């Protein structure tokens, strides 16, 4: 196990679930309840020092019991190291702690995850749709059960008739 993952496991023996290292990327999975604490630790601890948020992403695994996976990627500019933090969220209680109070940039990134995957973020200051229209009611486009061609919203558009000559 990589030493970064080891330190997280030592500090959070309860929340830590697993860690992998593949193609040089270190990734750590923690329980949903501990996400904010672990993130705070990653940001504040001088040995970690992850001051830069790279992106927030989400993956849909429809067959799993805890369906959604939220992925954060952090970078430590001074230490030049990268880490990926992951957690699982069930569909019935699709909410996870927001990290906007730690990294300001998480604001838009989390809004995008909410917009695309429907995962809500607790304590987010302004959780609205960002890329899709505000009045879009057909669900969350990046979920695996959302058809590629949409759910027919576009078919309801009014088309102008051909102008008679």
């Amino acid at each position, binding site marked *: 196990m990589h030493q970064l993952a080891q330190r997280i496991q030592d500090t959070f023996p309860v929340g830590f679930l697993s860690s992998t290292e593949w193609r040089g990327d270190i990734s750590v999975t923690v329980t949903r309840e501990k996400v904010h604490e672990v993130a705070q630790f990653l940001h504040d601890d001088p040995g970690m020092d992850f001051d830069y948020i790279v992106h927030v992403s989400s993956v849909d695994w429809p067959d799993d019991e805890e369906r959604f996976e939220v992925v954060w990627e952090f970078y430590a500019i001074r230490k030049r190291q990268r880490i990926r933090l992951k957690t699982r969220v069930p569909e019935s209680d699709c909410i996870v702690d927001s990290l906007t109070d730690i990294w300001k940039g998480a604001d*838009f990134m989390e809004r995008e995850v909410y917009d695309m995957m429907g995962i809500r973020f607790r304590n987010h200051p302004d959780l609205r749709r960002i890329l899709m229209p505000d009045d879009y009611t057909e669900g969350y486009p990046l979920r695996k059960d959302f058809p590629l061609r949409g759910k027919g919203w576009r078919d309801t558009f009014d088309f102008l008739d051909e102008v008679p000559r």
Partner: protein
Amino acid sequence: MAFEDQRTTVYKVDPEHPESESLPTLRTEELLLNMGPQHPSTHGVLKVILELEGERLVKSTPVLGFLHRGVEKLAEDGTYHQFIPHTDRLDYVCAMYNNFAYCRAVEKLLNLQVPDRAEYLRTIVAEVQRIIGHQFWLGTQALDIGAMTVFFYCFRDREILLDWFDELCGARLTTSWYRIGGVERDFTPSLLDKLKKFLDYFPPKIDEYIVFLETNRIWVARTKGVAVISAEDAVSFGLSGPTLRGSGVDYDLRKYEPYSAYPKCEFSVPVGKNGDTYDRYWIRVMELYESVKIIRQCLEQMQEGPIMADVPSVTLPPKERVFTNLEAMIQQFKLFSQGFNAPPGEIYCGTEAHKGELGFHIVSTGGGKPYRLKIRAPSFIHMGAFDYMSRGYMIADAITLFGTYDIVMGECDR
């Protein structure tokens, strides 16, 4: 600091004239103003709702998504090769760098080694693309805030490189020249000649751009001390590229996580001090010189060799063999119709595009299609800081802000 003044004078009573507090006040109310989505300076279809107090911005809310095409969803439905042309349409003024970032990410997923010559070709073209991107930025940014001449000069020189791209791959903007495992075709002698000529022609022209702008008092007044962001905030917002380096953070993936032929070249990364629009301009102009340096070194060091990795299950056969050899044709057909089997796993690969860190997060469950592909688009993340950076400035400075991020909506909305 100019920054502090701009923010406090709006709200506070002038300490030198305390009597101003007792003066009769006018009824004031905040004004909401919609800017965009059809506004010439928003570089595409971007709408911002501005809350104004007089002419000062109190709050601005970007409304994104007018150009949302669901690229990430499309990626899940096509093979890895089929997604390359989609990446062109992300940041459509700098297609080559998008291709590059995507191909690098897939190569990391496959653990594929790219031959030396291909790495050099990639670096050269990427840096040419960086020059084009910065020229485009310089021209339009200056045009937006009232300096017209430099726009024509930038676009004149950009045209030379676009024609060079045309000769290289048959397209000027949506290029799709990079391939997974290498590049589509090698430079011809004529292309090399033209590039070398351009390298001699170009550096004096950069000096010209600088003279045009820095002797323009209006332009200097509208960039110095405008849209300031501190290093700490810039890092916290996840800004990248020149927008972050303008605040004095020396973060450049070409140096931090060297890739392609960059570790073999000597170049410096310009870093600003004040974090204002002027510093970000200065960094981009200095990067033009650095790009020229990198291209020169690559041209010198480049050796003959293959331009595509030889892994038949993944990489494409040379075009001439496709037309003459049955096996090569089958290989090409199978790769484009079914794709290749990627190992199950998850990677993130960031590349220093000219706007900032362009990253691809790919989740694979095996098979020919990505299970999930997330694009970390610098323009989108820069827009997250828009509200914070615009507060206290004038309406006209909002235009400077769009410009200073080098925002392209195709990438922002994906």
